[in-house]
């Protein structure tokens, strides 16, 4: 650039720095907050009192139910039924190994791209305490809780190793990102291999384990179908766009229950396979149609200028899509995609309705069908509901964190 006349950085108007202003003491700010948010006016005060009374009564009711009224034996006595149902005990190591692998991945992912905060530690602590209490209650199987704690230990170990690696860009960082990223991409196949590589009896996933396998397969498989479907629907080639539109509209037009009937009666002749595999296919096909529409919305929301700039730089259509359009579109569509993921997570309960498969809710039905536990149906269903809520809540928190991590450079 020596032959170019060097450009002075054009002068910008620089203002003198602001003087440091005194901050107000915490007590003053707290009083201010309380007044403004709780007692802003006479009517506001009345509303606050009513709301506090209502919430207090609700909390008291919940505490009374959980600690005094409820009989949780229906859960503690049936914990293996709820967790893994008819899954053979001698194959249980597969479940623990799958759990350990998953927890290791969580640790590696947080260590590489994020970090555990105080809230995460509290959350892990609460879950661990709950599981240990549930498993060790009555002293039956101390091993199960030990396996769980071991998995948590593996998670913290893999976190501790990765979080100490340098975050600055460099060959080590690149290698770390590639290894962890590769593991994440292969996570589902590896987990399925661990779980399904045994003989026929070991492939009968059952109980909560079935929910935990069906949902990720539906979500990941659905996403894999949704991306080409969304791009295809937006295509200028009419044959492709019509095909994708037909797929999306037909699949969305019937309820999941209906598609599970297809899995039961029709898919047997088409693809065969076990019922579990057929249910997985239906989950992915169904979720894919919904996710495709979320991604299409994001594709349309991107400013036209992004496509134009990509072409002006000389990128081919495929390059523009891969490097410019999809990264932005997928980031925009995280919230609706996670919404869809949470929906399919809860919809895994539907397999019990149609297919001779038993997941958590189905096994809760079995638990209270025992004469001894029929009075405790509320406890059983409250437990199932709370477990589903906890996982859904976790999904929504993780999505928020992913959004924030990817949010760099947002307009």
């Amino acid at each position, binding site marked *: 650039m020596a032959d170019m006349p060097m450009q002075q950085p054009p002068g910008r108007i620089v203002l003198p720095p602001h003087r440091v202003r005194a901050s107000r003491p915490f007590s003053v700010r707290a009083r201010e907050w309380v007044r403004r948010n709780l007692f802003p006016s006479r009517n506001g005060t009345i509303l606050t009192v009513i709301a506090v009374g209502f919430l207090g009564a609700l909390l008291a009711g919940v505490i009374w139910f959980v600690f005094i009224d409820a009989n949780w034996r229906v859960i503690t006595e049936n914990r293996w039924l709820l967790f893994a149902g008819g899954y053979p005990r001698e194959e249980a190591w597969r479940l623990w190994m799958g759990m350990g692998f998953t927890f290791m991945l969580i640790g590696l992912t947080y260590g590489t791209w994020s970090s555990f905060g105080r809230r995460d530690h509290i959350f892990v602590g609460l879950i661990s305490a709950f599981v240990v209490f549930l498993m060790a209650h009555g002293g039956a199987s101390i091993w199960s809780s030990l396996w769980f704690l071991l998995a948590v230990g593996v998670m913290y170990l893999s976190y501790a190793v990765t979080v100490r690696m340098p975050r600055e860009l460099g060959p080590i960082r690149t290698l770390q990102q590639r290894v962890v990223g590769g593991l994440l991409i292969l996570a589902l196949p590896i987990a399925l291999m661990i779980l399904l590589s045994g003989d026929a009896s070991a492939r009968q996933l059952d109980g909560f384990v079935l929910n935990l396998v069906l949902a990720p397969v539906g979500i990941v498989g659905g996403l894999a179908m949704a991306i080409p479907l969304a791009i295809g629907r937006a295509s200028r080639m009419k044959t492709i766009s019509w095909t994708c539109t037909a797929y999306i509209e037909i699949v969305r037009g019937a309820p999941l229950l209906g598609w599970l009937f297809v899995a039961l009666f029709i898919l047997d002749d088409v693809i065969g396979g076990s019922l579990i595999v057929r249910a997985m296919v239906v989950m992915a096909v169904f979720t894919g149609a919904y996710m495709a529409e979320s991604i299409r919305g994001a594709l349309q929301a991107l400013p036209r200028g992004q496509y134009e700039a990509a072409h002006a730089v*000389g990128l081919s259509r495929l390059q523009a899509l891969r490097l410019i359009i999809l990264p932005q579109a997928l980031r925009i569509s995280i919230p609706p995609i996670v919404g869809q993921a949470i929906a399919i997570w809860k919809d895994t309960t539907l397999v019990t309705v149609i297919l001779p498969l038993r997941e958590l809710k189905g096994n809760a039905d079995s638990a209270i069908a025992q004469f001894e536990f029929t009075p405790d149906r509320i406890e059983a269903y409250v437990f199932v509901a709370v477990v589903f809520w906890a996982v859904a809540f976790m999904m929504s928190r993780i999505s928020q964190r992913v959004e924030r991590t990817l949010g760099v450079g947002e307009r």
Partner: protein
Amino acid sequence: MTTHDGVSDASADSDRLTDSQDIIVAENVDKWFGDFQALDNVSMNIKEHEIVVILGPSGSGKSTFIRCLNRLEEHDAGRIVIDGIEMNDDVRNLNAIRSEVGMVFQQFNLFPHLSVISNITLGPQKVRHMPKAEAQQLAMQHLERVGIPEQADKYPAQLSGGQQQRVAIARALAMQPKIMLFDEPTSALDPEMIKEVLDVMRELAESGMTMIVVTHEMGFAREVADRLIFFDEGALVEQGTPQHFFENPEEERTKLFLSQIL
């Protein structure tokens, strides 16, 4: 085979010779948007190293015209030849033309998910297959040229409008184009940032770049342009030197337009 190729090569060469230094040739270009005729029989020759400023009221087709020059819009009739390459449906021709023509947009159109330096290295790496280190070195040279090397690792959203537009210019320059198109590059900027972008464009003009600029910056047009072209209702109405334009324009519509904006 060889004879045929030899003949067509020779004719291509003779085309170049007859056009001599005309790096852009547009002949009788028409463009329709549905029933609306955006360009009406536009013809124009532009020489290498020439700075052309296109003026005209909004909707006059000036943006459409320069967007036809790198095929962001397809012209419906007529002929466009860029540096001896005919603009047609041949994808190889299109890619060859796009790599010779850089474009700067009114809305900058930086890639918001990529850092400033990645915005610039993307084209050289993916289209020119340049090694990463070399592309980054090139990008830093161009960032220095537009005066903001210290912003390399930031993201577009962290920059001011003027800085973003300078990055966009650097991004286009990194492809080492022979021609730069500017589509109202300062229209989306706050007044205090217009100057920093115009300064960069001025320096670029002095370096001998062929430039076509759609703008309302009359000071820039008067000072930098070799030729001004006035568009109205999709047609080329009048062209001439800045002196001709600002001192004795001939056409009534040109006079009216200039009286409104000066």
